[in-house]
């Protein structure tokens, strides 16, 4: 930048210090001359230094100043002097000395220690303390410490400039509590550079620059005769924060679009369901461990709900007890309506699929549905477990659907989610056959990540709900894993931490 450009980019504060650069050498001098604040001068000099107008140098000097107790001691005398003064007229007991000299226990102890060491006091036969000759001398004479403290009243003394006696007093006082302290004074010295020296010769008045383009300037057209101050557009500015969607919702929104692109319809439904929909309609045996208290959340009140129409209830009952009309053996035993009425927080979004299938007619087929939703399991929270989790659900009800289609849909979905490699392993769920476990290959970590289950609904599930035996491809992989992998979150609790700074700073879901 040439001198002219530099001149145009000067901040008002810089322009204020400009006239004093040749006559002053330190920041302090400019403060004194201009009446500007310390911080203003320092910032102005810093900016000028950034523009290579001058060079800055900071000198640090240690000097001794009085501390809290030091100020007090000047007024009332150091504790040892007060101790000796109390004994000036007659020997006293320790208690009386303490009272007369108004000393604390701690001070008394210190005084006895130092004064006995200097042989200034002695203990008499009557346990009274008396002043020795030495002590009387001390009383008359000012100690080096006292002299030094008095000097400090007049102003700080640089540590480097202490003379021998002062050095001794300084060392002694330093050991004691808050009598003196060392403060570090900074002196900012500047030297003009060549371009700086050139610049201060120029004559440009501060008022010649437009700082803020005001409506008045625009109305009057006055801006035409002015120059805009140039800004250092490379300097940092304060951050602003925008409103935005939670990152979980951003991820879900992306994935919703993937299912929509593939021609799926969106399902929704309540979080709280009767066991009938959540378990029984899915052919989960009534004595299956997932229906135990330790796995699933039940409700205290209302603990139960109502069953749907009798025909469907009879079909589900039949399916459990003897396979209904499917040719299956069923689970045997007696199916309990009471167990089916129990309310549960849904353990899977598959309950949405079940309700959807129950509402379909033959003429609706083929049909494809998806959902995203919160599911629940009775779990203690730690870095890898939460009692709430997100699941994505999908079903394809198509008389011509088969196992290869199931794998095809899943592979396509995960490819769109950024996992181009997926593999499928056998698995077990009470309501699907064949059942599949989905793994995707993590392109960064170079490892297989387990994402969840899929399968074809068993006839014992489909026939009671739909009335006919049609293959229903179904999947319900967890979705949190996909979100945490994308945002590099290692602790699941981070998902619901709601730290406002984290939410402000989390980058957008970009896929």
């Amino acid at each position, binding site marked *: 930048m040439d001198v002219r450009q530099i001149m145009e980019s000067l901040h008002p504060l810089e322009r204020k210090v400009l006239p004093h650069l040749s006559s002053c050498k330190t920041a302090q001098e400019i403060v004194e001359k201009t009446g500007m604040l310390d911080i203003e001068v320092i910032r102005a000099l810093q900016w000028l230094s950034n523009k290579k107008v001058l060079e800055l140098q900071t000198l640090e000097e240690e000097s001794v100043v009085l501390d809290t107790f030091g100020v007090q001691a000047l007024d009332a005398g150091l504790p040892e002097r007060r101790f000796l003064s109390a004994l000036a007229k007659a020997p006293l007991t320790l208690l009386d000395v303490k009272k007369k000299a108004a000393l604390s226990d701690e001070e008394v102890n210190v005084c006895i220690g130092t004064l006995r060491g200097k042989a200034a006091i002695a203990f008499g036969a009557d346990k009274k303390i008396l002043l020795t000759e030495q002590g009387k001398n001390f009383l008359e004479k000012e100690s080096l410490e006292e002299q030094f403290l008095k000097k400090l009243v007049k102003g700080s003394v640089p540590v480097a400039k202490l003379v021998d006696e002062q050095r001794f007093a300084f060392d002694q006082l330093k050991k004691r509590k808050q009598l003196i302290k060392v403060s570090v004074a900074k002196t900012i010295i500047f030297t003009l550079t060549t371009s700086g020296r050139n610049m201060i010769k120029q004559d440009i008045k501060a008022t010649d620059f437009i700082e803020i383009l005001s409506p008045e300037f625009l109305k009057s057209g006055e801006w035409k005769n002015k120059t805009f101050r140039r800004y250092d557009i490379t300097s940092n500015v304060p951050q602003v*924060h*925008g409103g935005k969607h939670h990152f979980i919702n951003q991820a879900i929104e992306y994935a919703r679009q993937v299912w929509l692109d593939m021609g799926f319809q969106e399902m929704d439904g309540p979080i709280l369901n*009767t066991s009938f929909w959540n378990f029984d309609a899915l052919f989960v045996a009534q004595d299956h461990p997932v229906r135990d208290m330790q796995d699933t959340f*039940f*409700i205290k009140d209302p603990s139960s709900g109502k069953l749907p129409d009798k025909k469907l209830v009879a079909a589900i009952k039949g399916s459990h007890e003897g396979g209904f009309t499917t040719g299956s053996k069923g689970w*045997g035993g007696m199916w309990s309506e009471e167990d089916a009425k129990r309310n549960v927080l849904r353990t899977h979004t598959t309950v949405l699929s079940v309700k959807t299938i129950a509402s379909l007619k033959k003429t609706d087929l083929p049909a494809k549905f998806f959902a995203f939703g919160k599911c629940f399991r009775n779990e203690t929270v730690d870095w890898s477990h939460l009692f709430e989790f997100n699941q994505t659900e999908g079903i394809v009800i198509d008389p011509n659907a088969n196992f290869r289609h199931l794998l095809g849909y899943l592979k396509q979905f995960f490819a769109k989610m950024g996992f181009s490699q997926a593999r499928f392993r056998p698995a077990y769920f009470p309501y699907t056959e064949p059942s599949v476990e989905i793994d995707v290959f993590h392109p960064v970590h170079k490892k297989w990540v387990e994402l969840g289950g899929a399968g074809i609904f068993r006839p*014992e599930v489909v026939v009671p709900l739909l009335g006919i035996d049609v293959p229903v491809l179904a999947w319900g992989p967890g979705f949190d894993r996909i979100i945490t992998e994308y945002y590099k979150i290692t602790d699941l609790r981070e998902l619901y931490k709601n730290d406002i700074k984290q939410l402000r700073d989390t980058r957008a879901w970009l896929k």
Partner: protein
Amino acid sequence: MPTVTLNKEVFEKMVGKKLPLEELKDRISMLGTDLEKIEGNDIVVEVFPNRPDMLSEAGFARAFSSFIKQKTGLRTYKTKKSGFKVLVDKSVTMRPYTACAIIKNLKFDDERIRQVMQIQEKLAKTHGRNRKKSAYGLYPSKAISFPLSYVAKDSQKVMFQPLGFDKKIVASQVEELHPKGKEYKSVAKGWKKYPFFIDAKENVLCMLPYTNSHDTGKIDERTTDVFVECTGNDFENVSFALNILATMLADMGGEIYTIDIVYPDKTVTMPNLEPKKMMFDVSYINKYLGLQLSDKECVAYLERMGYGYEKGHVLVPAYRVDILHPIDLVEDIAIAYGYENFAEEIPNVMTIARQNPFEVYKKKVAEMMVGLGFLETKSYHIMSKENQTARMNIQVDVIELANSVSVEHHSMRAWMLPSMMQILTINTHHEYPQRIFEMGTTFRKNAKMETNVEEGDILCTVSCHAGANVTEAKQMLDYLMRMLGMQYEVHAADNGCCIPGRCGKVMVGGKEVGFFGELHPQVLANWNLEMPACFFEVDVSALFGLRKISVVSY
């Protein structure tokens, strides 16, 4: 899912083939078990609950050797008659069924005893539903005098020495003194009598569902013949348990001898290891799998999963509890075919996508809040009751969980503002103003609903900064309602969480759909906040329902 540790050496010997480690790992996974790890001589696997027959080295090896084509097809197990009887008394109503057998000519060592103990435990946990459905016992049979009685007795009138005890006690003390008595007490809830096996010399073999007697003893290195009993409340479940145990012991070199179970009205000879027959329909298989397998190929795959084939029927081994329907055979064929060998396909089927209209509506509402510069948060549905009521200085009917995990999380969210307060509380060290919103499901009792609970999606918006006040709250609300084209009225309201005179309720078509206000300083103090805050809550579900009747047209 039960995790079992298998002895790799024993396993490989039974399989009859040693695979390289990586191949072994891959094949175990692709057979349909979750391999946790192979470490030294330990194979740690999670066996799926539908395959209790694979919980032992013998059972696992049997399935695995077929799968890798080492030894395919149906295994047949010969049985001989022991001539012994178990007499079932009509008193055992609480556990009416038993299935028993004797297995002879076994050889035991420490390792084999471990294997037998492990399957007994894992089987009781899964197939026996923690002994609730069935429980099993194994005894050296030479000390037993047949016939045995299976009979229920008043536990105060039976004396016996439980396993691990040094003297006889009254059976009624087992529940308080014996570890297994304490552990499984809940299984016998409500029983007035307990089932016992008692032999011809009046020796007690065991008290169910708890423990064996010390007299009959444990299986040790000298044991060659074993008496196996399974008892429970489901005939089929008990029979399967015996089949699994008997075939495992047979695979370990034993010979199976049957026992006649004499019920008051019939006699059943156990075990029955005849395979069950199931219809074989290759077109059904091909339809579900999307393959074109021939009959011959299908049969070959079935044999790889341990099945037999006879005149148009599949022979299902007697230890397979999970084959309820031909679809179960379809899965086994898929496993034998190899999941990795299926060519994935997206069918050419035209369907029309459709977003859920309510989801679309909620998205638009969220857009508006984002447009106002608000940050969306996400909270749990389960929280504490205290935070929703006392801490908000208001009484709300909160739905509690029957089995909560913790004090912090034991009630369903009844309204949204407490969730937002929680967020403000943990963020006091961050820059203000803090403007946040969230749309979340809330839960209230309503007897009209199927679950007697009504769920609603509530939007809550909170602005927290030095200038926050009720005017700002009303402005935010007004913006949203105008953008949604909703005509609304505001009525003055009282709410414990607001400063008196600075709270309003929002009415649309005579229905209350939300409220807004300036938070009471006491409530702010309850949440450790030193910054004013204002908010509004509206029931988005209700707005969605009302949207047609009160849309303003321009």
